[in-house]
């Protein structure tokens, strides 16, 4: 950011000098999220803004899927994104991509909320009183989400019913595997196995690389 801003500040007599120092910017495509996080770790605010725009919808979406209540989801989303800023220095690219790191943190925070009993009371109360309507238009983001959903849905369809139900109840429903076993009336061992082999099949179908 600072580089392009400086290049625009042309002063008489200094133009050629500036031009001499201007770096050759090759069109390299947009920076990757991993690159952005590296910059954020160095305290780069503009990089954080770009990162925010890239991940905020996914963070909000998964948190809301688990918590349901928009107001609580908003709070948790804010916590998660500030936590990304605070702990960006601890991100280790060898343990997965930046997207995975951020979304795993988001899901985990949502689960923590669910598992505290106070939260579940709040959740019920707020769901009953809250207006969910939003009056703005974000066509592009919605379309992107739709395409991602399409692919994930296609892969979920290839699982057995038990695999799919176990995964969605646990991941989107925020239930422990013990609760899933109770809900589906299955032995604990079966649910553990279905979660594992279902996710392995999903991994292969989506072509996931850690």
């Amino acid at each position, binding site marked *: *950011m*600072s*580089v*392009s*801003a400086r290049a625009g500040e042309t002063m008489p007599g200094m133009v050629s000098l500036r031009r001499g120092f201007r*770096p050759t*910017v*090759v*069109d390299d*495509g*947009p*920076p990757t*999220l991993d690159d*952005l996080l590296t910059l954020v*770790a160095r305290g780069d*605010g503009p990089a954080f*803004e*770009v990162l*925010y725009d890239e991940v*905020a*919808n996914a963070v*909000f*979406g998964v948190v*809301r899927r688990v918590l349901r209540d928009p107001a609580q989801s908003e709070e948790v*989303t804010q916590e998660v994104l*500030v936590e990304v*800023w*605070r702990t*960006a*220095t*601890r991100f*280790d*690219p*060898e343990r*997965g991509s930046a*997207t995975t790191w951020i979304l795993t943190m988001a899901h985990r925070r949502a689960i923590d909320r669910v*598992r505290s009993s106070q939260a579940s009371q709040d959740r019920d109360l707020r769901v009953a009183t809250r207006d969910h309507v*939003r009056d*703005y238009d974000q066509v*592009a983001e*919605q*379309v*992107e989400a739709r395409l991602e959903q*399409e*692919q*994930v849905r296609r892969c979920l369809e290839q699982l057995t019913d038990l695999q799919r139900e176990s995964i969605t109840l*646990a*991941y989107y429903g925020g239930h*422990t595997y013990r609760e*899933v076993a109770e809900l589906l009336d299955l*032995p604990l061992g079966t649910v*553990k196995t279905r*979660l*594992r*082999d*279902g*996710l392995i099949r*999903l991994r292969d179908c989506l*072509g996931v690389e*850690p």
Partner: protein
Amino acid sequence: MSDTDPHSLTGAYAADALPDDERRAFAEHLQGCPSCRQEVLELTATTARLAAAAAEPAPPQLRSRVLAEIHTVRQLSPSGARSSERDRRTQPWFRQPMGVAASFLLVACLGLAAFALSAQRHASDAEQAAARIAAVATDPHRQVLSQQVRTGGSTIVVAAGGNAVFRADGLTVLPANRSYQLWVMDAAGGARSVAVLGRGTRSHLERFIANVHPGDAIGLTVEPSGGSDRPTTSPVVQVPISA
């Protein structure tokens, strides 16, 4: 019953479905089980895709609140969490951290990208592009075609009414002198360039493609960074559009 084979808990762990006590016990088990750790990495990357699929527009007021709050929050100092230099050198070249020169260039690119992003957000061009993508993605007669990329990642092509939308996820990030290039390839062996897509990103890329007909294929190749007039390498993925 749950204590017989800790290895089988990788799925429940990746889905955040373990009660706290079992989660702690399994985290300890992971310390001494490299194969479990590898599986947890892969399954966690998988559940992150479930998260991404749930995306919905975040409330607009949240952005300014988060940006205001980070000004008041100190960042942690780096710890030993990152891997050692020795480990780094064994990494494939395209995953090694950037050098000083590269990060300088990246800061420059980032400035441009941020500027382009904000300018684009208000331009009617962007709205039109979004509307065109939406028309394809919601067409009741759309074809949805999905394929793995040979070199890593996956693609989905949605085709409807003579147009298509291409999306790629988890592409291998290319070195600085290479770019992905997107083509419409016809049955006669011709190829029309759609776009030079840059080095790729492990999140995702998306492009609208006009004039796509049955018998054509959507192909992605790796080219020198400025792109090529015609494909110079065989496609890393090629998705045929059926009738």
